[in-house]
Structures are given as structure tokens and as C-alpha cells.
């Protein structure tokens, strides 16, 4: 299964991620 987030945010929103990385519930996805 898959979860897709689509959202609007200001231009300076940043993801703290790398493609292919494992992630766990509660960990940071991104922020301004």
C-alpha cells in the first residue's frame, strides 16, 4: 500500500528526505 500527501505550502518549504530512504511514523518530512 501507499500513502500520497499533496499539499500547498510557501515556496521556502523544504523536505528533509532522500528518495528511497526508510522512514517511520512521527519522523520529520519537512518544514519551512
Amino acid at each position, binding site marked *: *500500500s*501507499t*500513502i*500520497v*500527501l*499533496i*499539499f*500547498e*505550502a*510557501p*515556496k521556502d*518549504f523544504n*523536505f*528533509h*528526505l*532522500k*528518495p*528511497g*530512504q*526508510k*522512514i*517511520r*511514523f*512521527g*519522523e*520529520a*518530512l*519537512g*518544514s*519551512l
Partner: protein
Amino acid sequence: LHTAPVVRTFRLRPFHFLVATGGGYAGYRQYEKYKEEQLEKMGIEIPIKLASKWEVSLYKSVPTRLLSRAWGRLNQVELPTWLRKPVYSLYIWTFGVNMKEAAVEDLHHYRNLSEFFRRKLKPQSRPVCCYHSVISPSDGKILNFGQVKNCEVEQVKGVTYSLESFLGPCTSTEDVQFSQTSSCNSFQNQLVTKEGNELYHCVIYLAPGDYHCFHSPTDWRVSHRRHFPGSLMSVNPGVARWIKELFCHNERVVLTGDWKHGFFSLTAVGATNVGSIRIYFDRDLHTNSPCYSKGSYNDFSFITNNNKEGIPMRKGEHLGEFNLG
């Protein structure tokens, strides 16, 4: 064959035909994969090979929903106590499940594989990050993330799907998130409610051994649910690289609403072994039902006369779960 009655000959042929074509196709795919590995070793960039229309149609013709429901029925059968430990241990070993994080570690506690699949975690095993505005709603693997451009969302690098097909157009007037639009760009512009904002996306793939509940990724209010019945093709990264628009073919539940910066949506996409999606505050939602009409969807608004706000969700709050079957 010469002596067999005509009926038996014909009865044997379809079976042989299926085995021959299936085996031939599997062999062809293996050879293709071997060739790609050789090219990769030589450092040659391999162009993404997308499935052709007939391959997608062939895959979609597989009764994945029926298989998924049968798989779910099987996993609801209560296991005798002596069988639980070996069965779940095999599942734990196969999919690398970490039972130390489970709220209940005793395998005999789970009456069947469905219950085991829906296991909860110890609260302290997943601390919710309080510094960042958006957290991961679930365990999993990041398939892709970034800005949405030209109304196309990348399911994996280089393979996209249409935002409008994925979220669907609007038929209701009160729902500002969706509205009939002439071109896709104005569809994307309709979603962005504040000047200077952009649209972002993130795709998280949950593997079979992962914790399969999901939580609210931020503080937001859910105002609308749209359920798209559909196929239940596999969504593992290999298939997501092969079938364009995969997430628009599959059964999915789109929750839309708003957060402090405007539009926000979370979509749970089903797959073959995980055909059912449950949203805890949405009792009217029924997924993976036997019959549905292609391309249909059903809407539900959480905004009513005495609840203008929709459903408030705190960051990290329990939101829903995927179930087997």
C-alpha cells in the same frame, strides 16, 4: 490425444495455452531484466521502460480484487493457538517485522493474520517530531517527493500521473478544493489558495512487514472524502516504475482539507494484498466491495450544518489503517 474425446482435447488446450503464454511472458521479462542489469554494469543509463497499453490491460484483467478479498477471508480464519507462533514467525522472518515495537509482543495474542497485520505499536516506539510542521504519517519507504509541476505528480523518478485524475474533479459546489477547470494548470492553481504558495507531494510505500496504521501528518481539518473504487495492482516500487498512472488505476481514498498554509490532502492507495482501507472517523466508507462501476467515485463531506469546520486532526493522531483483503 488422438483417442481422447474431442471435449477433453479442447478442455486441455486453454490450460496448456495459458501455461505456455504465461511462462513465455515471464521468461521474456526475466531476459529483459538480465539485459538491463548488464547495461547497468557497463554504466549505461537505462531509459525507463513503461508498460505498454496491452500489458497494463492484461495486468488489469487479473481479478486482483477477487484475489484480495479471498486473501482477506483466508486471513480472518482463526488459527489454533499452537499454529499461531510458527505462522507469525514465518511472516516476521519473511518481512523483517520488529516485534519489540509491537504493543503486544506475545504472538499467541493475535487470533489470525489479519489481527497480526493490524497490530499497534508501543507509543514510545514512535515519538512524534514536534519541531517540523509535517511528519511522516506512517512507516515506509520514500518513493518520491518534491514540487508538483504542470499538474503532474511523480510516482517514482521519471514516471508521473495526472493530479486531476488522481484527485478527481469536483461536482459539489461547497468544496473549494476541487472545481471543474478547463486546463490542468488552472486545476493546480485552484488547489493553491494563497498567493506565492506552491504545491508539494510526497509518496510513501508501505512494505508488507511495515506497521500499517497511519496517522495525521500535521495539524489540519479534513473536510471531504472521495473514495475511488478501482484495481488492486501491486504498488511496490518495481511496479510503480513500470506502470504510468498506477495510483490512478488503484482503489484509493482521498481526504482533503486545509492546514495553516492552505490546501492539504492525504490519499491512502490500496494494493493486491491490502485491499481494504479504514478511516476511523468515516463510518460510511466501504472499500474493496465486490461490485463497482469503472471510473466511478463516491464523495462524502464532513462539513455539515452544525459542523462548519470539518474533522480537526492533530499531528500524529490516529487516522486510519490498511487491512488485508
